[in-house]
């Protein structure tokens, strides 16, 4: 496919970016030191002359020159102690160097993140804070101090359990030196048990439970006798009211009725001005004045 390439001029309309501009990484500790001292980075040659084989080998990688793992013989020095393994010592030194190198790298990253925020870290790395007991590993994964604390708690719990596993729940045992008063006491509230031979208490307790249940469900439980008496009293009261009304209409009118009514109304009204119980008593009294005294109480109840 042919076609000529045209060089485009720089853009005129500026569009917003999708991601923020990449930040410049702050210099690491070595880079700062090198900058101060004027140390320049030099490129290393790919090949290196290997003394043992007498040939040019690559510096890193497969069959590298001066490989530390391939040393067959290490000559003993005067300062060497018998029983020491020089190969193991070399390996241990290497491990130490790698460890310090990694720690230094991590320190550099943390310093960079602290200075300029997490955006300066390389995209494939991330710094995460570790929480105690992270990963669910108790043991190697967790710090030494945390392990010790957990062991101490375990020992304390065990000694307490041992102390209260006597017939008297450790109450009369001698306290050891250094032991604090509450350390060997049983944990939790003291439980009280009812005596086995007391039937009266048991019966009253069962009875109270039954009463409580019935009280809660009293709305649902229908006492037929009570309902019947209530309905009958209501009907009686209504009949009585109707009868009185007819008597009043047929009897004389005017002052007697009015006066009686006014008195009743005033009495009721005056008493209503007081408190609730006083008001109730007042109304009862007024009703008693109006109708039959004997039926007043019941009628009042029914009304209500």
């Amino acid at each position, binding site marked *: 496919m042919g076609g000529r390439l045209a060089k485009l001029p720089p853009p005129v309309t500026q569009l917003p970016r999708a991601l923020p501009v990449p930040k410049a990484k702050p210099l690491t500790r070595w880079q700062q030191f090198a900058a101060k001292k004027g140390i320049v980075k030099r490129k290393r040659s790919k090949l290196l002359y290997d003394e043992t084989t007498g040939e040019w080998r690559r510096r890193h990688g497969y069959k590298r020159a001066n490989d530390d793992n391939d040393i067959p013989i290490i000559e003993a020095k005067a300062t060497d102690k018998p029983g020491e393994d020089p190969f193991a010592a070399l390996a241990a030194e290497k491990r130490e160097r790698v460890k310090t190198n990694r720690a230094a790298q991590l320190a550099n990253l943390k310093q960079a993140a602290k200075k300029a925020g997490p955006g300066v870290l390389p995209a494939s790395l991330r*710094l995460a804070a570790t929480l105690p007991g992270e990963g669910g590993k108790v043991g190697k994964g967790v710090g030494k101090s945390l392990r010790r604390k957990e062991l101490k708690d375990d020992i304390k719990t065990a000694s307490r359990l041992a102390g209260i596993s006597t017939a008297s729940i450790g109450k009369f045992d001698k306290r050891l030196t250094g032991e604090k008063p509450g350390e060997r006491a049983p944990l939790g509230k003291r439980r009280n048990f009812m005596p086995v031979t007391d039937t009266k208490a048991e019966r009253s307790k069962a009875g109270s439970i039954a009463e409580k249940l019935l009280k809660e469900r009293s709305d649902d439980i229908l006492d037929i006798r009570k309902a019947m008496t209530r309905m009958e009293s209501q009907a009686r009261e209504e009949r009585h009211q109707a009868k009185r009304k007819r008597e009043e209409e047929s009897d004389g009118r005017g002052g007697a009725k009015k006066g009686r009514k006014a008195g009743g109304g005033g009495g009721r009204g005056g008493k209503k001005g007081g408190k609730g119980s006083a008001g109730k008593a007042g109304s009862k009294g007024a009703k008693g004045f109006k109708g039959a005294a004997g039926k007043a109480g019941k009628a009042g109840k029914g009304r209500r």
Partner: protein
Amino acid sequence: MQAEDATPLVPGQTKLVKAKTRRGKRYLESRAPKAIEDAKRVLFLYGNQTSQVIKDVITDLYQLKRLEAQKFTRKNENVRPFEPGGETSLEFYCNRNNCSLFVLGSHTKKRPHNIVIGRMFDFHLYDALEMGVEELKGIRDFGAAGTGAQLGNKPCVLFVGEKFESVPAMALAKSLLLDIFRGEPVDKINLAGIDRVVMAVAMDDSRLQLRQYSVRFKKSGTRIPRVALTEMGPRIVFSVRRYRLPPSDLQQEAMKLPKLGKKKEKNVSSDSLAGKVGRIYMPKQSMDTLGLSKYKGTKRERRESAREAAEARKRPKAAQPVTEGPSTE
């Protein structure tokens, strides 16, 4: 890359979390911020209810951006870019799919045939524009006019109407449409690869029309070809509804220009003695199959014409007696 540090972790310490595979590392680096960014990917999705019109618009726009887009097929009811808490789902989807633009289609009684085009900065909602689709003529209705255009080519984008500068909603629409159709930022373009023109016309303060043409170059007498435009793509009339502009601090952050270092010219160095010195790397050549330069006389046509002339001379010579001296040829 192998097992992490053997040093025991202490509470309060920081742990270094690395990518576990090289492929993972490369992927994370590809998603890291860069000085010059890649093409913005678009996320196409539907809201709570859709209509056939909206589905057609979304599918057509998706076809235009296929490789640089991701389309969700299901309806999402908690995606509401214009409500204060409604953008968290959207930000999560865009983050997961590495999309910095989104096109959300929905249809409600209050806002029929609704499209929200929006942008993300650092995968947080930056700005958004809501438009209603008034008229639509899909790609299919234009027949085979669009078959000439190839996916992945950058279109020419044209904005007609001074409303795109004066009205803020239209200016936002211009910016968003440019972002969608832009593709990869390049500094050189192959002229044969320009095969689409996207045109946006501002009809009035709140309506804009989108059209797409496919470009064909015809022969003209001069070196510059004659351009033939045929309408191919969706023809959509939008009416602008709500819009949401970015907060000013975020806008400042997003509009920052990166400091571009000068590109290192490879294989060129300067020497104090020779001045500017360049290096050329030659491929290996085998001497047997080397294509040497040919002499004019050894070319086939020349040999054949010479042979024919010689034969022509021989025949008349045979007819006539030899009277002349040596031939002049």
